[in-house]
């Protein structure tokens, strides 16, 4: 679950990280009111995607009138598919050094990794490509986490390839940055965040450390531990819970793992690998997949029905390929879901089912009795659905 900037900042504040004073505005008037009360501000579109600056989603304003005008403009924007419905009005941070601080999952090291760079700002990915030594990394111990000396070591590492002037200031920089580094790690750990990023992290002349932008993504598998946060964020407008694609929005509501694509063959399978392979097979046989839909392991007949209904919402879909290799998923359970969906939803579009694995005898029997002829080879089934839909 991706949090919007202002939601992420509220979380970071809870862990003791300083963020600029700001407020939410959902209308131009609210933005104007905020500026009237608090003075000049940056008005920032709240969308769960990068690049909003270039897309015109940020305006620096001095007066309430300007705020109203800019807010009105930004609220009409659609940034990479995300319509802007929430703004964040925020006091400007004084001129300061722009650092980068992030924590994310490092699969290769089976650990979280903390990253710090004095070369923060928009271009951090470029820094990673061209001058990777400028990004210092630390891998927290799974149990012990990050100690103050680890944080100080990270700051020293970030400065080793920096200017001699900054190196001279390392004592002050270590003192200034250590609390924020420890807090960001604690935030990631306690929020089950797979990414927690501050860019830029401003360090002012007087040594204050301020998170000027923030991104947090919470592990979806761990959301059950953060129910109240989840509810709260959803209640606050739920910008972060909204996918840019309307079908994907719908799928999220239905709790389905669904990705919308451009083609016309609806694809459903159990297991991400199998569904990806299903898409590959459709393409190899000359068809174009309309979606990716993984019902996961051990799906119930209800879930299968739910999945079929979801896929059919896309009117571009000319037929559906259901590819099941039962392991923990039981073929009879899936078969019941397919039959129920076909009957209750009155599906008339072509339906090709490939079914094998756990309880396959039972499942295939059910399908045959219901007049659906199941295949056993995925390749043959792919060929069948493509020939049924290509010119439909």
């Amino acid at each position, binding site marked *: 679950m991706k949090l919007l900037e202002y939601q992420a900042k509220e979380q970071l504040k809870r862990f003791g990280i300083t963020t600029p004073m700001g407020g939410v505005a959902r209308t131009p008037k609210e933005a104007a009111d905020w500026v009237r009360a608090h003075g000049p501000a940056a008005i920032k579109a709240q969308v769960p995607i990068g690049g909003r600056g270039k897309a015109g989603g940020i305006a620096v304003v001095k007066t309430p009138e300007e705020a109203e005008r800019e807010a009105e403009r930004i609220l009409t924007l659609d940034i990479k598919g995300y319509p802007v419905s929430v703004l964040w009005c925020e006091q400007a941070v004084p001129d300061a050094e722009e650092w980068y601080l992030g924590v994310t999952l490092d699969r290769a090291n089976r650990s979280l990794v903390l990253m710090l760079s004095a070369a923060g700002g928009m271009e951090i990915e470029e820094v990673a490509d061209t001058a990777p030594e400028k990004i210092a990394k630390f891998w927290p111990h799974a149990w012990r986490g990050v100690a103050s000396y680890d944080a100080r070591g990270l700051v020293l590492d970030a400065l080793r390839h920096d200017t001699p002037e900054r190196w001279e200031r390392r004592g002050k920089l270590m003192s200034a940055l250590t609390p924020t580094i420890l807090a960001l790690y604690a935030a990631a750990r306690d929020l089950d965040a797979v990414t927690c990023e501050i860019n830029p992290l401003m360090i002012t002349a007087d040594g204050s450390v301020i998170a000027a932008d923030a991104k947090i993504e919470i592990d979806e598998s761990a959301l059950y531990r953060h129910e109240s946060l989840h509810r709260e964020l959803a209640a606050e407008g739920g910008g972060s819970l909204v996918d840019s694609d309307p079908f994907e929005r719908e799928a999220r509501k239905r709790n389905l793992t669904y990705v919308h694509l451009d083609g016309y063959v609806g694809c459903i399978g159990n297991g*991400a690998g199998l569904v990806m392979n299903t898409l590959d097979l459709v393409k190899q046989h000359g068809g174009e997949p309309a979606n990716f839909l993984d019902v996961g392991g051990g799906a119930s007949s209800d879930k299968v029905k739910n999945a079929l209904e979801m896929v059919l919402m896309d009117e571009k879909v000319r037929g559906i390929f259901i590819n099941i290799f039962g392991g923990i998923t039981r073929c009879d359970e899936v078969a019941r879901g397919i039959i129920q969906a076909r009957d209750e939803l009155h599906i008339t579009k072509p339906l090709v089912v490939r079914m094998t694995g756990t309880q396959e005898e039972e499942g295939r029997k059910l399908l045959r009795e219901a007049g659906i002829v199941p295949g056993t080879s995925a390749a043959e089934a792919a060929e069948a659905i493509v020939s049924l839909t290509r010119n439909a």
Partner: protein
Amino acid sequence: MSVLVDRSSRVIIQGMTGREGRFHTEQMRAFGTPIVGGVTPGKGGQEIDGIPLFDTVEEAVKATNANVTGIFVPPPFAADAIMEAATVGIPLIICITEGIPVLDMVRARALCDEMGVRLLGPNCPGIMTPGECKVGIIPNHIGKKGNVGIVARSGTLTYEVIQGLSQAGFGQSTAVGIGGDPIHGLSFTDVLELFATDEETAAVVLIGEIGGSDEEEAAAYIERSFHKPVVAFISGRTAPPGKRMGHAGAIISGTMGSPQSKVEALQHAGVTVADTIEEVVTAVAAHVAPTPAHIH
């Protein structure tokens, strides 16, 4: 021979009295797996289908001398189940559960390493040595005893490959599903190292997918020191790149994880990379002879 499990394994099941645990325990027994106990807190002393239940992993191991555990407990409790087994020192822990919070797995994996035990999974189909032992959820009837080793990230594609090979007459030494979660136990390389010294394995099929860098690491290992033929397949090659947010992931992974990166690394290591499951079978046929019919 085979790797990790065989007829001498002594297997317990954590979460045996749950819906999935009970169903698949039956399946495993039908396969011939030596299931010696189950663990469900509060049910110690009872039996289920003749298998003794225990309150704790420790008691189960004391009573049965188990050396493998299969975990079927729900996601909020699964990392704990792994750690309970690890602290008792069970040498092979196989976790089937899907949807475990990733930071739980960071800790559980670290504890397994600290305790010197092997973890397979989570979110994996488990392991099958045809004719001897199965722990997990791979369908019973698709395997065939033989000399092809399989190691795969995707569960369902593991089944596809086993079935494809069996139908074409190529039996398997052991099929190992390592699971697709970001933080997991045995890697491709770990399993390849086992196959390297397994006399019964003549060739290996490696089934990867987009994301992560396990395949690239396996390619480096193969190039360095794996001398048996390897056939690979990478799924998700036509999938659109997922949307991502923030820079942190990109800084860490760089270009690792793309299908191109994986295919190129494997080909560079001398691996035959197949475009479809059918091609996997054809490529295996170029390296090993079909398993004689009398073996199963």
